[in-house]
């Protein structure tokens, strides 16, 4: 633990009985009361998640937009101020270096949120791809991020801030103030539910966390529930479903690739060697990262990237890479070396009743 990074909230988590474990080099809360309870609470009420480990950059200066259009896959040409967009940083071959959200803060002024495990590599890549005159800053250690997620999160945050948030659409954001501090409120998240990602200076993260928990509808949730929630919502996790060896098109993100510039990695998107499948298993037993994906004949055609028992569905679900051309099979067998689990391909999201995109106006 001594060599782990800690978020500003780590002491709070430990004092409140969280089970802690390493994640991407960080000492993070996996659960407080229990993963299933926290999962259900997020699907029905509102939960706060400590996401301070994730990275934040700013990119500013004349030419920033054009440079980012060539550096990242995001289609920034159509991204209005006050909106943000999901996309990828690719290598030359089209493999995914990271998935990230880019915020349009104003003319040639962008805010970028990246995965904790990729911060250093992402920042180096970003700096290499930006021309002179465009300034990049890594603010990861100075910014705290708390996610408020769940169908009650809008009502909670409106009461908390004393502001109407019904006009804040999915993938829109607003800069405001809380307690005299700058607060960025983004209607985004990783749970499939209505929710917000909140950015505040790191020194105020604890105060924000405490204040949000004063609302009786809000409970803390750990990375365990974050993972089951994102799996049910059909959202990929970098390192599992996304990696340098696969393109976003192979990962099923082809319809998002609307940037028409000749961005780094674009050429590589034409080749599809494997496709990512969403799989539903027959029983409660879960497939796990690394299990073999086979046809009924026993022929191995791929590998499971992540799998879990899905609390909101009462059965197990998984993502797996499948050799292109084999994805049409009526059913698959997942072999974990001890058992053979029957699975069939299904459309994602696995859980279809999420409130993330609900129109509030």
């Amino acid at each position, binding site marked *: 633990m001594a060599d782990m990074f800690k978020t500003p909230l780590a002491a709070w988590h430990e004092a409140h009985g969280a*089970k802690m474990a390493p994640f991407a080099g960080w000492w993070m809360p*996996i*659960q407080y009361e*229990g*993963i*299933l309870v926290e999962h259900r609470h997020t699907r029905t009420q509102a939960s706060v998640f400590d996401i301070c480990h994730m990275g934040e950059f700013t990119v500013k200066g004349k030419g920033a937009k054009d440079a980012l259009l060539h550096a990242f896959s995001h289609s920034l040409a159509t991204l209005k101020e006050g909106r943000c967009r999901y996309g990828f940083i690719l290598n030359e071959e089209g493999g995914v270096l990271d998935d990230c959200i880019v915020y349009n803060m104003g003319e040639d002024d962008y805010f970028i949120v990246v995965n904790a495990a990729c911060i250093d590599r992402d920042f180096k890549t970003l700096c290499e791809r930006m021309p002179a005159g465009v300034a990049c800053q890594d603010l990861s250690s100075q910014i705290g991020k708390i996610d408020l997620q769940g169908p009650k999160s809008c009502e909670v945050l409106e009461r908390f801030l004393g502001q109407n948030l019904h006009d804040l659409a999915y993938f829109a954001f607003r800069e405001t103030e809380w307690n005299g501090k700058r607060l960025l409120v983004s209607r985004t998240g990783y749970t499939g539910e209505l929710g917000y990602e909140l950015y505040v200076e790191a020194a105020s993260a604890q105060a924000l966390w405490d204040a949000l928990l004063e609302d009786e509808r809000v409970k803390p949730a750990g990375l*365990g529930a974050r993972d*089951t929630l994102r799996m049910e919502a059909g959202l990929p996790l970098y390192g599992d479903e996304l990696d340098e060896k696969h393109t976003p098109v192979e990962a099923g993100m082809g319809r998002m690739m609307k940037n028409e510039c000749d961005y780094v990695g674009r050429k590589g998107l034409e080749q599809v060697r494997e496709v990512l499948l969403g799989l539903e298993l027959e*029983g*409660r*037993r*879960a497939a*796990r990262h690394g299990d073999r994906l086979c046809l009924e004949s026993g022929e191995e055609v791929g590998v499971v990237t992540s799998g*879990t*028992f899905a*609390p909101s569905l009462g059965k*197990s679900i998984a993502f797996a890479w499948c050799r292109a051309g084999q994805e049409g099979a009526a059913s698959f067998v997942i072999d974990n070396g*001890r058992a053979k689990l029957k699975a069939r391909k299904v459309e994602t999201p696995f859980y279809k009743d999420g409130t993330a995109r609900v129109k509030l106006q």
Partner: protein
Amino acid sequence: MSDPKELKYSKTHEWVRVEGEEAVVGITQFAQDALGDITYVEVPAEGDAVEQEKECGSVESVKAASDLISPVTGTVVAVNAELENAPEVVNQDPYGKGWMFKVKLAGPVEGLLDADAYAKVCAEEAH
């Protein structure tokens, strides 16, 4: 919750309640707490032979999968069928309704720990 004094324990966190020539087996409070929310339990079938210190099933939670190791040698005479659809009972009542299977013992039960010795095993692992 402290571990019942009348039970015997294995170092791999199973408990045994000896009832004459039979023994009931489950996993301990420490095991269920370490695993977290249990989502799937595979126990041996009635009639299966189980051997002490050998794998005889598995217990899965949201985050982990763990082998179930038989703490005794004998033949399975009953299994807790309720766990198939309600494995969370193991979390709620590991020493009662969360029992896993019952064995007709092949011989006297040996090589297990009493509650005090088992508590020391847990204390060491908790570090």
